[in-house]
């Protein structure tokens, strides 16, 4: 067993784990954070996407031991004070989810995308989500949600600046 320490959604965690324990299983089975899902075996689908030090990663292809010493953010930790994060709110507003299985990973990938590219074009959003599969929505409303969230965040940033 290997000792690991990391911060997950702002909380410090420390555990003993098997080296082969995947980060996604650490989050789900050890920490009980089950929003991130496992959807494939080949690092293709992105349903397990979380943020590692603010960057989107596929937690099925990160060992828990590799994340030791770092910060992890999941959808459970995105919203504060009962308010949805702008990306979560935009997904709801735009019907960007149906069965919801891809959604936590999609949301975290979108948050990561907008952090790096606050004003993406539609093409950039589609490419930015190439690692996240959805079977239900045909992607149409997911793209609209991310573009709307980009507007919202920009709107919010503007509001803060001008206040």
């Amino acid at each position, binding site marked *: 067993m290997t000792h690991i320490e990391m911060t997950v959604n702002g909380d410090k965690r420390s555990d003993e784990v098997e080296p082969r324990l995947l980060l996604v299983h650490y989050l789900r089975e050890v920490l009980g954070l089950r929003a991130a899902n496992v959807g494939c075996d080949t690092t293709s689908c992105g349903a397990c996407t979380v943020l590692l030090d603010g960057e989107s990663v596929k937690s099925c292809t990160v060992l828990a031991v590799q994340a030791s010493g770092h910060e992890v953010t999941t959808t459970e930790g995105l919203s504060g004070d009962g308010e949805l994060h702008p990306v979560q709110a935009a997904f709801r507003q735009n019907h960007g989810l149906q069965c919801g299985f891809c959604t936590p990973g999609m949301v975290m990938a979108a948050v990561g995308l907008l952090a790096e590219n606050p004003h993406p074009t539609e093409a950039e959003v589609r490419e930015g989500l190439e*690692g996240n599969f959805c079977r239900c929505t045909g992607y149409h409303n997911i793209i609209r949600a991310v573009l709307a969230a980009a507007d919202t965040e920009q709107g919010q940033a503007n509001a803060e600046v001008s206040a």
Partner: protein
Amino acid sequence: MIPAQFDYVAAESATHALGLLAQHGDDAKLLAGGHSLLPMMKLRLAQPEVLIDIGGLTELAGVSVDGEALVIGATTRHADLAASDLVRAEAPLLAYAASQVGDPQIRHRGTIGGSLSHADPAADLPMALVALGGSVELLGPGGSRTVSADDFFLGFFETAMQPDELLTAIRIPRRPGVPWGYQKFVRRANDWAIVGVAAVDGRIALANMGPKPLRATAAEEALAAGASAAEAAQHAAEGTSPGEDIHADREYRRHLAKVLTRRALEHETA
């Protein structure tokens, strides 16, 4: 879909990593981004008994200039390479190739050293290295050595790296302002190339036209002899040994190599 059991050690330095490699030999594999190795381990196609994690070694990351060469640390992530102003200025083909690997999440983790030592003939960075005429620096018990791209890739997932060596850095000739082209023909966005072509400065490299990234030497020679892009591209498939799979048969791959080489020589990216 989960790896077989293994022991894990976080290396504290490059030297420490070398010592561990020497100690464990074939039983050990290096882990940096893990996005070539871990997918294979999850499918149990690779079952190392020990993983030596060098992902935390900041000494092995970063981009700098050393005379006529761009020097890139082996554990530099694809995303950082793609976004680096320095790389985009001095070796834009490399920055673009890094931006094409997998998807954003993969690019946040995968490293250039990992990708090159994995040596997938269909991958972006091995092809880019060959096109750019770069080289890799290998550190072993006996010291450091440099191997050129043309000599580094030996075959299907096989390189000139010894089991007791660590890839520490990549050197790329600086070519600011030199036109380049890149073509990655895929069925779907985050696939490996069905056929890939990278061209710069009279050099043309092909992905997935053989067991390793190949130089399209016949096309290069035609170009050097004054042929147009279209004429030179007609020779792109000569000397290649493309495989057959669900995406393409040999004939289609050869055809694609010619079309994509012409487009790369015309400095188009796709």
